[in-house]
């Protein structure tokens, strides 16, 4: 076993890349759930975003347009969920599961012509002086734009929920849709917008996998990342910064255990493979022992009774 083969600088830099897909999907789902909607279709929206983004990037040659298409694709798919749950008043759990299955099938269909193709490379940001700094430069300044976008999005969502009036209305709708309705707020509109935001974020997360992390297209390539993102939101007690912490923790342990496997640690590979899930859940369970709780109207169907 040779632990010296593990370079801590590279480890931290690569955990940020490994964490970004679930971070993006998780922060989107957080906003959806704070509006009182439980969308279990994150996996389906991610994989749809992955192929939409991949196809658009290949066709246009621009990774940026790929990400835009991924966000649109995820949001479009989430509209189906929004229609089912907000207008047809269907059960949210069942609709979300159906959305995941539908998204997996749809993406396989859309992706038939794209297997084995390489997407255009996403440039890393290279700031001449800063990136060349020892240690810090490689960790903080050598990434692609989406890594920074993910962190900025967490900050923006946090500020939105805490300081803006729209954020207050969104939280109110998630807390009690009946009271919000009585005050004259458009419960459905707020929820549809929140669902679409969640879909767009999940799509971005999916495209990050297919355009940067892997980068190529294979069926079912998100491999359960959507479910991790869902669990992350719950264990993060619906708080944005904790989603960031959880995602980086998960990404970090994932990268570390891969390195440990490569270094030939004398622990069965199966234990190493389950370690990211165990450690992330453990840490977040301990942290969620405070008084925070789920939005009171989470998963409940709003029926606008007159």
């Amino acid at each position, binding site marked *: 076993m040779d632990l010296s083969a593990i370079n801590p600088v590279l480890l931290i830099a690569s955990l940020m890349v490994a964490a970004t897909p679930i971070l993006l999907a998780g922060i989107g789902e957080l906003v959806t759930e704070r509006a009182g909607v439980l969308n279990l279709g994150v996996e389906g929206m991610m994989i749809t975003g992955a192929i939409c983004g991949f196809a658009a990037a290949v066709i246009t040659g621009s990774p940026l347009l790929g990400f835009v298409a991924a966000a649109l694709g995820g949001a479009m798919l989430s509209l189906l969920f929004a229609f089912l749950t907000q207008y047809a008043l269907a059960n949210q759990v069942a609709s979300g599961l159906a959305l995941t299955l539908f998204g997996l099938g749809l993406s396989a269909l859309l992706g038939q012509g794209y297997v084995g193709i390489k997407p255009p490379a996403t440039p890393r940001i290279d700031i001449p002086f800063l990136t060349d700094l020892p240690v810090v430069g490689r960790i903080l300044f050598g990434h692609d734009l989406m890594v920074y976008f993910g962190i900025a999005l967490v900050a923006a969502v946090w500020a939105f929920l805490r300081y803006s*009036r729209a954020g*207050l*209305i969104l*939280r*109110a709708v998630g*807390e*009690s849709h*009946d*009271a*919000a309705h*009585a*005050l*004259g*707020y458009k419960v459905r509109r707020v929820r549809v917008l929140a669902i679409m935001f969640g879909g767009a974020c999940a799509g971005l997360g999916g495209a990050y996998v297919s355009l940067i992390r892997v980068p190529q297209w294979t069926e079912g390539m998100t491999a359960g990342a959507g479910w991790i993102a869902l669990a992350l939101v719950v264990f993060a007690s619906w708080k944005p910064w904790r989603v960031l912490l959880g995602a980086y923790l998960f990404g970090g342990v994932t990268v570390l255990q891969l390195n440990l496997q490569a270094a030939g640690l004398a622990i069965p590979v199966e234990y190493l493979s389950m370690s990211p899930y165990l450690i992330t859940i453990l840490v977040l369970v301990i942290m969620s022992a405070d008084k925070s*709780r789920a*939005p*009171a109207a989470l998963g409940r169907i709003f029926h606008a009774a*007159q």
Partner: protein
Amino acid sequence: MTETDILLSIRGLTKAYPGVVANDGVSLDILRGEVHALLGENGAGKSTLVKMIYGLVKPDSGEMVLNGAPFAPAEPQAARASGVAMVFQHFSLFDALNVAENIALGMADPPKMRDLAQRIREVSEQYGLPLDPDRLVGNLSAGERQRVEIVRCLLQDPKLLIMDEPTSVLTPQEVEILFATLRKLSAEGTSILYISHKLEEIRTLCDEATILRLGKKVATCVPRDTTARDMAELMVGAELHVPERAGKLPGPVRLAVNRLNIASPAQFGTSLKDIDFEVRGGEVLGLAGVAGNGQDELLAALSGEMLSSAEMVSFDGREIGNLGPTARRRMGLLSAPEERLGHAAAPDMSLTENALLTGVEREGLERHGFLYWGKARDFAEAIIKRFDVRTPGTENAARSLSGGNLQKFVIGREVMQRPGVLVVNQPTWGVDAAAAAVIRQALLDLAEGGTAVIVISQDLDELMEVSDRFAALNEGRLSTVVPAKGLSVEQIGLMMGGAHGMEVAHV
């Protein structure tokens, strides 16, 4: 009265829902600075009428004129912008948000949070309703929550303030303070539309009353010059029957509660602290209290939904605190909780199934795990017949019954099982006067037969009507149990916790 004295004029408002006309050509005028009462039974159309004024419901026909200009609010924001504010019967508050955030949500154009907190403090002090803007609403008492709603309205300088059953959650002292606030507002020129079915309150507060029955305006009167009985008969359209009972000496102690301490399982619930009382056969014990002071928890502790140490609850001398609901039911300790849909009855199950759910033990509707559907249906039919439940048949879902009819069914279901002790919470909540009289009479008849009856209620008139002895719950503690006869409203108010820190408006 000239045209300029009229703030809001309503002409021929009509609103129909499938199968029922909620409002049928209702007309009324509200003067500036007037306290106008809107009276009527449940289902008379009071709520629909104020929802139309507040922009939550669009009328089918008819028109409104506010301040001389046509008024047809498309949504509550528009109504608020025109100076109409409303305090809801079921509070429109958010438990997980703080007072300032809740108030900001009800304002069209709220100031910055820090300025808003300052204004909340000023306005609430001015009207004698002190409030801390930073507290979580979920931790406030019912009276304090109402203060939040009222302050939210006052911050917008309303011309018309609509109050839907505002005193149902207040102690008598809190009611007096609220009335002082309302009188101050009305003296400043704000009109108030006051919905209530507490007639004595309307007689002390209101200048004018409009009475609705089955969606139609049936009368107007000046409450000060009309007796409560006359107003009640105008509302019901018939003579009222007051429950009666023959005096009888109480029997042996059936239920004894001994230093009962239980923590509430609900996040914003009330824990029970050192509760001590006993009830004898043939006696009705009335327990008053403002909502959220431990009523639900006490019912759960007596019914067996919440377990305690064995010695804390005894039934006929046997310690049963650690037994669950089924074991207690088998012995004859029955209960009917407050929430009809979802707690007392399963909404989507038929009346037969609902009858079976609590009657299975004492009515012998099961053997070796197999159910006797025929007997269950007979049992449900017997309840429907004896309590005059209006329903097409036993196979209708509980949800399809009106509130009053379902309440008759869930109370009747327990009464028919010959309980040794019966605990009911809010037995006539949302039930019209005639049905309420039937339910109260059934409870009294049951006591005549030797049952110990515990009535938990927020309706003081009801408790005074049925109780032999009386006590009040306040923040999870029980006051001393005293004879109900000759108790004054002031004494009751103090037992319920006095004014909960409210103060009189600084007029």
